[in-house]
């Protein structure tokens, strides 16, 4: 089951560039939440603050509080521990090129020292089924490398990899933007099914996608969160004029 995320006064910098300003929101558990906004508005930076990937950049800085469940992720835990509980899928599929499909999915466990073969086999199968990839690869699990799959398959492999460690939250940074429409549609189906088990935060450029998969949507602009509400309200009757301008295509 997933947990909720509480963000209080989050600010983020890249060196002197104040990328995120005073972000406050509550992301509900077991729902899909979409984050929309024009390029460069900070939504990617925001999700990277949720699993402390933002700080892998040496010039990055963060202030504020992020609570995942009841854990203050910046003060009560180390980045490595957080990232085992919060999974991430990136914009461009990035399977490990030297590893087989099986090893890719099992990577999060094997590289953390888990070695029980029987359980690993089961987890790999379950994760690949959950990410709708099992039938396409079940005969080649150990023979084919992760990089030999198509783009859409690679992304589903990355999703399986993220799911295998049983995270509580799944962050997705424009997961389908590099894929063809058929793969995109498959991934949207996936999100639809997964959200009952995990808390999903999905960054997307595609407003229709947000409308299709998410219950709640947040609109980011210039590093601030302008509006955060149910998806229905955002797209039919937004409170803020800037939101309305964006969704009607006046800019962005």
């Amino acid at each position, binding site marked *: 089951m997933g947990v909720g995320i509480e963000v209080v006064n989050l600010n983020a910098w890249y060196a002197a560039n104040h990328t995120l300003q005073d972000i406050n929101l509550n992301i509900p558990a077991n729902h899909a939440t979409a984050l929309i906004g024009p390029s460069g508005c900070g939504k990617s930076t925001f999700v990277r603050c949720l699993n402390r990937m933002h700080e892998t950049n040496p010039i990055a800085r963060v202030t504020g509080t992020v609570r995942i469940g009841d854990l203050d992720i910046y003060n009560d835990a180390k980045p490595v521990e957080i990232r085992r509980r919060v999974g991430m899928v990136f914009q461009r599929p*990035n*399977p490990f090129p*030297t590893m087989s499909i099986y090893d890719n999915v099992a990577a*999060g466990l094997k*590289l953390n020292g888990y070695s029980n073969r029987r359980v690993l086999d089961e987890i790999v199968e379950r994760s690949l089924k959950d990410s709708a990839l099992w039938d396409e690869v079940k005969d080649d699990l150990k023979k084919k490398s992760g*990089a030999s799959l198509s783009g859409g398959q690679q992304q589903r492999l990355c999703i399986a990899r*993220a799911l295998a460690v049983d995270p509580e939250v799944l962050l997705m940074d424009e997961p389908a933007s590099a894929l063809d429409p058929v793969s995109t549609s498959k991934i949207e189906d996936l999100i639809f099914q997964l959200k009952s088990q995990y808390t999903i935060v999905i960054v997307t450029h595609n407003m229709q996608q947000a409308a299709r998969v998410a219950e709640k949507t947040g609109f980011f602009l210039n590093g601030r969160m302008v509006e955060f509400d149910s998806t229905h309200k955002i797209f039919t009757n937004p409170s803020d004029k800037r939101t309305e301008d964006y969704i009607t295509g006046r800019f962005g």
Partner: protein
Amino acid sequence: MRAGIRTATDGLATGLAVLSTVLVVAPLVAIFVYLIFKGVSSLNLDFFTQVPKPEGVSGGGMANAIAGSAVLLGLASLIGVPIGISGGIFLAEFGRGTKLANAVRFTADVLNGVPSIVMGIAVYSLIVYRQKHFSALSGGVALGIMMIPTVTRTTEEMLLMVPHAVREAALALGVPNWRSVLSITVRTASPGIITGCMLAFARVAGETAPLIFTALGNSNWSANLNQPISALPLEIYRYALSPYEDQHRLAWAGALVLIVLIVVAVSLVRYVTSRGVLKGAS
């Protein structure tokens, strides 16, 4: 008129450039061909299986020299490869952009240009002088130290080729940094790193100067690290300068063996880096 001069100059310059190329490439190709020709005609099974005969006696081989080189290079690799790869990991993964890394990189490049004979003197002073005898150990150490800057730089280059996305994927999974570097980044770059080590290996395999007064050479079989030991380039050097035709032939054969080793190593490096065998992720 002016246009004519300019065109003529252009033609002249082109001609000179082509001439330079021919003047460079032709003799160098000629050297290669001559080496191969002389070497092949002197190469036989005995070369690989027998020790040299006494002066003036024909036949024999350089088996002990090849074995000696193997021992020296084994010791050198033991020293040079782990330290060099680790240094490369530092430059690519931990120190990127820092002043320390820039200083290390610069110093490694400068070290690559220090004459190998200087390295030999340093190791002579460090080991041979203190132990009061020549040894395979000192030769191996000299070669090993020479490998470190080369391996460090090639490892760094190969690691930098690993796409950042692969590292991010590992970190986002909650894999500890050290594990991510070793099992993911280094493993992805391993074809390149290995061929980089091969390049360093081939380079020190041909080094003579640092061995002249560390390993010294030995006309018999020896695998004792505390004794002088023979090496292929050493024997090539000595035989080339000897007055006996038989030994000249052995020297040519040895030269051919060395050349083949080096051509293989250089070609492999080229293949790995230019064909992008490294790039598994899209």
